[in-house]
């Protein structure tokens, strides 16, 4: 009974953790370039349950009952990298990637970040920057990677990322991709950090467009209802076990 109590509680805690992730997704329903997270819950490894109910030659011996899982545990958070919907905007500095790849950003210390949020702007010194002030990396006319300089010119971009300012080609957007998306870690501010980035090949760029969050609102609502009711079921289990324990402690052997 005590064991059952802890099993039910592990269910409660796992569902609460899943709800954390679901509400985090819902809060980001309108965030550009957001990729939904899913929490994977798996059951504890089975343990062997045995008691001493078997009698052999008049002596009590171990009796294997079978294996039992002791509850559920939180396994990992999996990020869903499916394409979000692309909407048109009016700004020349908005970009969206259709396909696999990430915009490459670099901060002032040379750390690389990757993002699907293409809401950039040209700052007062003429460089293309992301929302939080990081330089957008592109390949210039000598194929050298570096920040993209636009200066005073009017920015235009084609399908493969070539950026022209007043008709003169300045840079092309450097889009990174990864062999294994499992190494990507979310770092907040719509950024990912990852290792071993290579140049992406299977993508197309859209200028004057932004990629919306890829969360499916219906999915999140249904998951939330699911979690809520599972939580309620586990809670009822705890209450039932509590009652049973109460009877075991108080009523068994009482003379009423």
């Amino acid at each position, binding site marked *: 009974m005590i064991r059952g109590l802890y099993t039910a509680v*592990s269910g*409660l*805690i796992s569902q*609460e*953790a899943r*709800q*954390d*992730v*679901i*509400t*985090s*997704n*819902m*809060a*980001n*329903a*309108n*965030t*550009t370039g957001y990729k939904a*997270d899913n*929490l*994977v819950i*798996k059951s504890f490894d089975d343990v062997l349950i045995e008691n001493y109910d078997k009698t052999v030659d008049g002596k009590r011996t171990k009796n294997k009952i079978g294996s039992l899982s002791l509850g*559920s*545990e*939180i*396994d*990992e*958070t999996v990020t869903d990298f499916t394409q979000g919907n692309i909407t048109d905007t*009016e*700004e020349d500095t908005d970009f969206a990637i259709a396909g696999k790849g990430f915009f490459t950003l670099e901060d002032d210390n040379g750390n690389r970040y990757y993002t699907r*949020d293409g*809401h950039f*702007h*040209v*700052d*007062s*010194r*003429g*460089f293309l*920057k992301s*929302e*939080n*002030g990081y330089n957008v990396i592109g390949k210039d006319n000598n194929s050298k990677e570096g920040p993209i300089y636009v*200066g*005073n010119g009017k920015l235009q971009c084609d399908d493969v990322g070539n950026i022209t300012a007043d008709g003169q080609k300045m840079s092309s957007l450097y889009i990174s991709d990864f062999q294994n998306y499992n190494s990507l870690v*979310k*770092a*907040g*501010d*719509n950024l990912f950090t990852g290792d071993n980035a290579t140049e992406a090949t299977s993508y197309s760029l859209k200028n004057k467009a932004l990629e919306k969050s890829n969360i499916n*609102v219906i999915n*999140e*609502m249904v998951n*939330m209802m699911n979690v*809520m009711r599972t*939580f309620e079921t586990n*809670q009822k289990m705890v*209450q039932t076990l*509590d009652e049973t324990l109460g009877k075991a402690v108080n009523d068994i052997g009482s003379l009423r």
Partner: protein
Amino acid sequence: MQRILYNSKTGMMAQQEKLDSITNNIANSETDGYKKTNVEFSDLVYETLNRQGYPVTKGSKPITGTGVKANEMTREDTQGRLNPTGKSTDLAIDGNGYFKVILKDGSEAYTRESSFNIDSKGTLVDSNGNKVAIDYINGYNSVDYSTKVDKDGSLYNLNNGKLINIGKINLYNVNRQTSNSSVAEPLLSVGDNLFKPQAGVAMKVETDASVNQGYTEMSNVDIGVEMTDLIITQRAFELNSKGLKTADDMWGMVNNLRGKWYRLSGIFFYVV
């Protein structure tokens, strides 16, 4: 349980800020020269779920988000539609550029306003009485209602049937080649359709834009886009409020784990 509550709270607060921006845009949909504001969102830091007392598989690193924040409002500088009015003092800018005005305290500001007036001294002023900066030549120092303004800003007066150049209204823009501070919004709005450059931002004379006499520039707000955004924002707000309610219900269930309702001769009792 707090994480669920706060995630939903950040969602609702962020959508609220976007709503502020949308309603401001709608209120200014008829303001000449108004440039709409945009609000984008960023997710917040991620934290580990490997907390004390949480059953986590050995060696795995599950994480959860902590919600969303609304970024600073940015201006969308797209061109507004030109509305023909026929008034000789209406000057609309087509392209990227600003008029320079001198404020009453002597400082300079920049504006996209298009409805100007001529005061009793012959000075071209905006709707707040700020002087438009004009480079006069040949001793002229005033304009009147018959002054013609060319597309490049040159002013001509009709004198005995001949057009005489009396000066020029220049258009200005941010000089991205010589500014030495790096800011996202080089021109800050100070209200009344006026903008002032931030510290370290240099301005230059803009030749890529044109001045159109007899036109006003309308607001660049598209009501269709704003209404769609309003609906999306409202529904996102509602979605997050559902998350908040669920968090509340879940916590209520936990609080009621111990303690049941009993009924004794028709009256309900809650016994802990």
